[in-house]
């Protein structure tokens, strides 16, 4: 059964990718991208990668299509047929890459085997020692937040960098602030509509779910990143419904920027505390008298830092895109 599901999902993925090549028109392409993200997430579930599936669903089927749609709202849906002056060059490059990939398969260990080198050596140690050394059931969170915590700090920095980059690129140099949109937002006109009523009821539950995912990540799928995306999506939903000025009144852009920086600092300062405690950077055992408790504290704090940073950055990116759209339309 599992094989059947796996084959079906992967075949649908390939079909979606082929459709993306053949389709012309950005609206259809974005819808296909969203489908692709959802199919990938489903595939990850069948591969027992539940945390990854969660993240891919939030990102690939949520944030990415959102940003794409906002861009296309500005640039239009038209996609020209490419004038094929050098049509052979892309085919040649792709064929060469494909050939190299085929060569790569020739001596590859089979997937799904517990004896494969990938599943030996380092990973069994994580599975065996997490209970004793870190004391939480979700091994992925243990590896992410403790064994390889420095990579996750890098990840937080990546998302922070994206926020900084988007601000640097999109914020206008000439002092026009986040738009005081005088144009009525098309959806917000109808205050009693179904979308409005249902969404306003949902928003508090979305926020609550985000908090649940944030703090339950030690015990089940979840963690800072997924929680941050979900938290941000509540605000984005409100903004889409009631217009940018409304959501900006709830959390102004400057506050969001400060929160993003504070999220990263929360994570980094936890590491500095370890240094001050005489141990190496991000060694949580100094945070409490008992090393395992120290690990718990450390993981909760840094996951919170990641969650705050991610939520803030995604909200800020949404603000930047939305404000840019409003200026263009005005």
């Amino acid at each position, binding site marked *: 059964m599992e094989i059947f599901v796996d084959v079906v999902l992967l075949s649908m993925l390939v079909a979606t990718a082929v459709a993306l090549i053949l389709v012309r028109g950005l609206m259809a392409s974005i819808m296909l991208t969203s489908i692709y993200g959802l199919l990938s997430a489903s595939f990850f579930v069948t591969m027992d990668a539940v945390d990854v599936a969660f993240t891919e669903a939030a990102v690939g089927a949520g944030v990415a299509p959102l940003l794409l749609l906002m861009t296309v709202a500005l640039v239009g849906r038209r996609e020209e047929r490419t004038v094929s002056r050098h049509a052979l060059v892309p*085919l040649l490059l792709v064929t060469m890459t494909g050939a190299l990939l085929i060569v790569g398969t020739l001596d590859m260990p089979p997937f799904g085997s517990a004896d494969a080198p990938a599943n030996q050596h380092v990973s069994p140690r994580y599975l065996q020692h997490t209970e004793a050394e870190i004391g939480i059931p979700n091994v992925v969170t243990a590896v992410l937040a403790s064994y390889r915590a420095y990579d996750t700090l890098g990840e937080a920095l990546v*998302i922070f960098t994206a926020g900084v980059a988007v601000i640097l*690129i999109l914020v206008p140099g000439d002092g026009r602030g986040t738009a005081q949109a005088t144009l009525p937002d098309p959806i917000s006109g109808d205050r009693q509509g179904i979308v409005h009523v249902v969404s306003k009821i949902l928003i508090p539950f979305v926020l609550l779910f985000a908090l649940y995912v944030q703090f339950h990540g030690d015990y089940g799928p979840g963690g800072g990143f997924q929680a941050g995306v979900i938290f941000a999506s509540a605000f984005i939903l409100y903004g889409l419904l009631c217009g940018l000025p409304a959501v900006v009144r709830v959390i102004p852009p400057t506050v969001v920027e400060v929160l993003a920086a504070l999220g990263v600092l929360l994570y980094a300062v936890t590491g500095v505390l370890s240094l001050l405690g005489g141990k190496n950077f991000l060694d949580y055992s100094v945070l409490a008298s008992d090393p395992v408790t120290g690990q718990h504290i450390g993981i909760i704090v840094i996951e919170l830092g990641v969650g705050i940073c991610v939520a803030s950055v995604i909200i800020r990116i949404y603000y930047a895109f939305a404000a840019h759209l409003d200026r263009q339309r005005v």
Partner: protein
Amino acid sequence: MDILSYFNYWVVMALMMLGFYIVIARGNLVKKLIGLNIFQTSVFILYISAGNVYDGAAPILAEGVEAYSNPLPHVLILTAIVVGIATTSVGLALVMRIYESYGTVEESEILEQDEAC
């Protein structure tokens, strides 16, 4: 089991090539970013497939479970997904500014305008 292991890999290869093709062969900047997304996601499938253990469960420690899938690729791919969305958002921000300056997001038209300068 053999069919499964190599099938996953063939699909990964196909998706990589399809995504890579969209990036370099399509002239619309937004389409290029979509292709980049496909290309990157195919790499995620590669890693996750490599870490899957056929009879294993999700790597959340529980009573009575003996075999788990490998948690390390999951951690790596979580980070890689973040990197992917970060790149996409920066790319789209650039596309918006390019549209504002050039009036188009088709590579050929942008080149024409630049050569005319």
